[in-house]
């Protein structure tokens, strides 16, 4: 039984199962991000990008069948007392170290490129030209091919070794298992590397913990590549995002900071007004410290909202007030985010 989803559920707080699924699969909408932040699972964004609806539903069904989860209403799930006991009975669940870097890159792509790039280096080290490379999408093949052409030299294998030696050493300082996982997940000459199940087996982890560790590993590799130089870092750097929000989202935020009204921003950027609002709400959730809140939510607006919406933000029920439902909902959601942010900061 894969108990992974128990990590994302709570005994005290029923959580929307589609939010959990969308967080893991990295299907980002403002609603998903908002609820993910509220549940405290935002850093799990994209932790299981390959998760399908059918697989998610099946895992939930198995956990409900085992009495570890229960359904609340039509679309929420929560841990049962047995679920809590189960979690507490686990000897030492793997605690991720690098999840705050969730936004850095698609770890699936990082993994594909690093594995293929390393395989090429390993086969070169053994002077072997006849081998089956790991099957990856054509774009990744081309990226690795171009990278290899650029970096191939007499020192290439030594440079790859030096870089990975440094990385594995840094990982071992965090957790020995991360270093073991890194070198044993690599595919090389006559070495196919561990599958995820083998990783769980050899490191004596549950499958759930192995999944958590594996994502942590690739985030670590990405974070490391951001700060180092070397052939592998160069291979991965084009995949690394400069910020948690997209470039387009950042542009909208900058224009808003310059004092442009939302309608003007939409006109200038040839975007729908709704998209501009989505950009600002996304930035409010992912990079709240970068926003000029006084500008986005002027004192008068804040006072009005404060008067109408009180208590726990999650229990607020939206009701329009100006006749423009879209605009009202934008301010309603922004104020919810602001309140949560202020509470967390204080």
């Amino acid at each position, binding site marked *: 039984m894969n108990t992974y989803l128990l990590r994302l559920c709570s005994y005290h707080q029923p959580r929307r199962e589609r939010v959990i699924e969308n967080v893991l699969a990295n299907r980002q909408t403002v609603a998903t991000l908002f609820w993910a932040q509220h549940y405290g699972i935002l850093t799990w964004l994209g932790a299981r990008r390959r998760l*399908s609806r059918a697989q998610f539903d099946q895992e939930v069904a198995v956990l409900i069948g085992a009495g570890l989860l229960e359904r609340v209403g039509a679309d929420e799930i929560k841990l049962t007392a047995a679920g809590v006991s189960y979690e507490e009975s686990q000897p030492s669940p793997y605690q991720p170290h690098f999840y705050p870097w969730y936004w850095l890159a698609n770890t699936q792509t990082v993994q594909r490129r690093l*594995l293929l790039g390393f395989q090429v280096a390993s086969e070169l080290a053994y002077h072997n030209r006849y081998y*089956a490379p790991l*099957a990856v999408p054509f774009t990744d093949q081309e990226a690795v091919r171009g990278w290899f052409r650029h970096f191939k030299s007499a020192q290439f294998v030594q440079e790859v*070794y030096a870089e990975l030696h440094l990385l594995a050493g840094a990982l071992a300082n965090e957790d020995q298992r991360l270093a073991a996982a890194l070198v044993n997940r690599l595919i090389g000459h006559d070495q196919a590397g561990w599958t995820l199940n083998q990783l769980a087996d050899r490191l004596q982890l549950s499958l759930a913990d192995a999944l958590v560790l594996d994502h942590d590993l690739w985030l670590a590799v990405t974070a490391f590549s951001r700060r180092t130089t070397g052939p592998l870092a160069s291979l991965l750097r084009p995949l690394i995002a400069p910020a948690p929000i997209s470039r387009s989202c950042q542009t909208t935020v900058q224009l808003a900071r310059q004092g442009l009204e939302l309608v003007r921003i939409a006109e200038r950027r040839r975007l729908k007004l709704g998209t501009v609002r989505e950009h600002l709400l996304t930035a409010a959730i992912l990079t709240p410290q970068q926003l000029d809140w006084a500008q986005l939510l002027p004192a008068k607006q804040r006072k009005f909202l404060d008067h109408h919406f009180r208590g726990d933000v999650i229990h607020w029920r939206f009701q329009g007030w100006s006749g423009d439902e879209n605009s009202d909902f934008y301010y309603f959601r922004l104020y919810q985010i602001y309140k949560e942010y202020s509470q967390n900061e204080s």
Partner: protein
Amino acid sequence: MNRDRLYQALQHHFGYQEFRDGQLATIEAILAGQDTMAILPTGGGKSLLYQLPAYLRPGIVLIVSPLISLMQDQVDRLHRRGEKRVLLLSGQDRRTRDQQLSQLDRAKFVFASPEILANPAVAACLRRVNVAMLTIDEAHCISQWGPDFRPEYLLLRRFREELGTPPTLLLTATATPRVQADIIAKMGLTADEVTVIRRSVNRANIFLAVEELASPDEKAARLLQLVKELSGAGIIYFASRRLATATADWLQKQSGLAVAAYHAGMPAADRFRVQQQFMADDLQLICATSAFGMGVDKDDIRFIIHYHQPTNLADYVQEIGRAGRDGRQSVAVLLTCPGDDLLARQLTTVDLPPLGLLEKVHAGQLPPSALGSNHDLFTFYFRQHYTADQIVAAFKKRHRQTNRQLVQVQRYLRLTSCRRAFLLNYFGEQVVEQDRCCDSEVPDWRSQSLLPPRQQQVRQTVNDNWDQHLQTLLNLS
């Protein structure tokens, strides 16, 4: 073409001195420009049939194949031989595919699924280059999958015509005379136009057995016993990914053997690892769905166990044919228990919407989604100008066909006479007599030690020294 040149090419490109049975005749026919159908047993070296002519003729060889895993396997094998002029068009996003199509003229081998060839942009690009030869791998799919699950197979005929009818090679390991005729007809060919090279499906070194168990629990226990008794590498086939995964885990714990699951839902890197480990004998058992095996290039697989019933005998013969390619004694066991036939029936059933509903969708009065989860399948036929009546008739015909195939599987399971004779009969072949044939003739086969005893495998231990492992990977130690 001069035979000497063929032998030279065989030696030069593949390192072999001799052709296997049926290979030379097929290659000569296709190089003479004849449309050719090769029905050669699993492990008979079918990929050489299109690869060798590719080196002797200018232009591209286009290989149509049903599964990405199968294509990937062929691509891997070409890479291992140092052949880099290979493109795999399926399973890519649009941007990637466009990039690939722009490099089409540099390719020698192009692999594609029927679905991707149904894409007008892809077909147009292929029309612009010199496709010297069209190969349909696993050609029985034209007959087996065409009408229901993979309707794009039915478009191959038109696609071939649009390419200017290049010499076409139809490859399969199993085809009854009826399926053979159906494939030829569906490709728009006639029997006298096609050179058929047929060799027996019989694999004399594979012992055939069926065991009927009383319940799923008994079946699981029996499986465990079997994998402990049988030695060497083995594959266990399941109808479900979930059961394949769960059983791999369970068997590893219970038997102490190195076991892994393999199915199409796993990440590509893990599938690659499992396949490589199995080839290198680091794994002894694979619990797989049918995604594993087409094209598995391992000669010493000693046994194949089917944990669920196959849906037809052609698939079954293909799957068990992965055992014993080295010619040594091997075993194929099919385990069954009450209720298994229902599962097989479920897997082959397509829910056909009522005629009235189909008509309304056809007339645009209802959206295609009203046809349920298979709406793409039915709208495909509308696009091919089928009427609702014709769709219903085609699916009913197909349903009768799959039922007949299931009945044959049931008959095979319940046989009290020779299983090999039954299979050979089914494929329209002469019955042969042989020793170590099947469980009806050797009922106590389990006590006969058909396979040598299993040798104790040393389980791999974790090398705590990550630096040493890294150095080994990079040949620095």
